[in-house]
């Protein structure tokens, strides 16, 4: 289902956590809310889910063409997965997943058998069959995460809201679960927003990346758009490595990604700048050079292929020429 957020503001005391958020999300999309800690991602997600509300009269939330701004969470059918899962510790995995069905008013509550079938089906979907009698405390982090997801899915949510879904997991599990979530989203097709402060995660997983900073949206776009065409200096710096350099005789600052720095022999006529290789690190198919610019004494990172490294026979202390392949200011 589509989600439209307009002019949303949220103030805590005197602190403006959200300062005028406008966002449109089309049906079936997997959207990443990306931004540094404290930028207002969780607050925005909670307001969309009905767990928090905008300042009175300041903004609206529309889900599936229906204005839900003042509706409580229970009426929104938004599946919410909390950063630390918030599983019910005293209930088994089965009871956790069944919760959303059990609390329905009698008229629309499914029968015992129907609930059982649905819960087991969901547990199969998140690959936790056989664990239904365990308590949350008897599960690993990744398993808890998937119980939380199954629990949220039990209410047939119109949208899925995930707050830092992989935040508390170790790197390996994180990677597996990331891939799994991508496939999972393709399978169920529910409009999904997930919060993350990890740019890699956002770029790899999302159809649309929403970059937030200090309670505002800096840019909305596909991963490629936000990475290749950052709208603001903040986005440039937040997404991927970036060098800030000045060319000689020009006052403006250039943003250059390490792979956009072309390394030439020191005597090459195309060289715009000259530098010394301070540090060289080669692992995998590419090599990372840390360069000290001769003109301004600033440092600059450059990524080149291993092949180029070997062909040019570079080592630490060498002098090289530099051409900035794709310079923007």
């Amino acid at each position, binding site marked *: 289902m589509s989600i439209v957020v307009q002019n949303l503001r949220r103030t805590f005391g005197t602190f403006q956590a959200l300062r005028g958020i406008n966002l449109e999300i089309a049906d079936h999309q997997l959207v990443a809310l990306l931004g540094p800690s404290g930028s207002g991602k969780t607050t925005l997600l909670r307001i969309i*889910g009905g767990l928090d509300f905008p300042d009175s009269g300041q903004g609206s939330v529309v889900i599936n063409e229906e204005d839900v701004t003042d509706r409580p969470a229970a009426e929104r059918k938004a599946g919410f997965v909390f950063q630390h899962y918030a599983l019910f510790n005293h209930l088994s995995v089965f009871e956790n997943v069944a919760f959303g069905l059990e609390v329905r008013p009698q008229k629309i509550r499914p029968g015992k058998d129907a609930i059982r079938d649905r819960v087991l089906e969901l547990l199969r979907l998140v690959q936790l069959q056989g664990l239904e009698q365990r308590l949350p405390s008897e599960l690993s982090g990744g398993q808890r995460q998937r119980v939380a997801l199954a629990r949220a899915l039990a209410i047939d949510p119109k949208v899925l809201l995930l707050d830092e879904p992989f935040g508390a997991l170790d790197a390996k599990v994180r990677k597996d679960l990331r891939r799994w979530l991508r496939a999972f989203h393709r399978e169920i097709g529910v409009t999904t927003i997930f919060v993350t402060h990890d740019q890699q995660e956002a770029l790899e997983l999302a159809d649309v990346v929403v970059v937030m900073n200090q309670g505002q949206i800096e840019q909305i776009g596909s991963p490629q758009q936000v990475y290749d065409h950052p709208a603001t200096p903040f986005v440039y710096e937040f997404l991927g490595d970036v060098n800030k350099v000045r060319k000689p005789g020009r006052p403006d600052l250039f943003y250059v990604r390490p792979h956009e720095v072309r390394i030439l022999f020191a005597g090459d006529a195309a060289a715009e700048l000259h530098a010394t290789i301070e540090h060289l690190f080669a692992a995998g198919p590419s090599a990372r050079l840390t360069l000290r610019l001769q003109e301004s004494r600033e440092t600059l990172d450059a990524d080149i292929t291993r092949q180029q490294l070997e062909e040019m026979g570079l080592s630490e202390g060498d002098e090289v020429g530099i051409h900035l392949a794709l310079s923007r200011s």
Partner: protein
Amino acid sequence: MSVQTRSTQDPLWTRVLLIGCAVGFLAVFLFVPLALVFAEAFRKGIKVYADAVTEANTLSAIYLTLTVALVSVPLNAVFGVGASWAIAKFSFKGKSLLLSLIDLPFAVSPVVSGLVWVLLFGARGLFGPWLREHDLQIIFAAPGMILATVFVTFPFVARELIPLMQAQGNDQEYAALSLGASGWQTFRRVTLPNIKWALFYGIILCNARAMGEFGAVSVVSGHIRGETNTLPLHVEVLYNEYNSAAAFACASILSVLGLLTLALKTFIEWRVGLRRQKH
């Protein structure tokens, strides 16, 4: 763990001395007096004990004590849960003031806690004339004693629950709400199970104090034998009349109550310990 490392580091004599001191102190100040209470109660034989315990005024004191506890403990349980809920789960102006107010009964002397009610509802109190016109008696009657007891014992439940509920946060409640649960369902199915042992613990402590309270109740009671004496007040009356066998017999009932409280408290701590190990 830390106990083990300590015990292997400290020399034996230090340990023996420290443990000996602790046990000796407990023996002198706790076990001996407790044992004396029972010894004194049964000194003149079981018959005298039974007579003292079943005497009309004693029975009336037991009845009044139970009534006072039965009314004030549930009131304070409800109040304690409500106040802890408000303090732990919401932020609002005057929160720290409310926190201090909850501790007030611990801070002021029980006599003052009793006098407050006399000032409000006594014959010459603020509402005294109005009460007399309507033929209502609060002071020197059960309602006053209940008020005084409620006031003195209201911190017990809240004090147990607030730190726990603050530590638990409200994510689980929010999860329940987003899954479609109503406020009441959320409380019943999520909040209550999470606090039940702490709540039970608070209620036991509250009950022990409600049945054992002396000072505040003494001020509002009026000491009418067979009518407005609770068990602790009754013990004092008997003792002042040099009827020590009966006084100690009644005191032994209160002591049994104390031991029962202790046993329940230990049981709860053991249960909670088990749960911690499992988690």
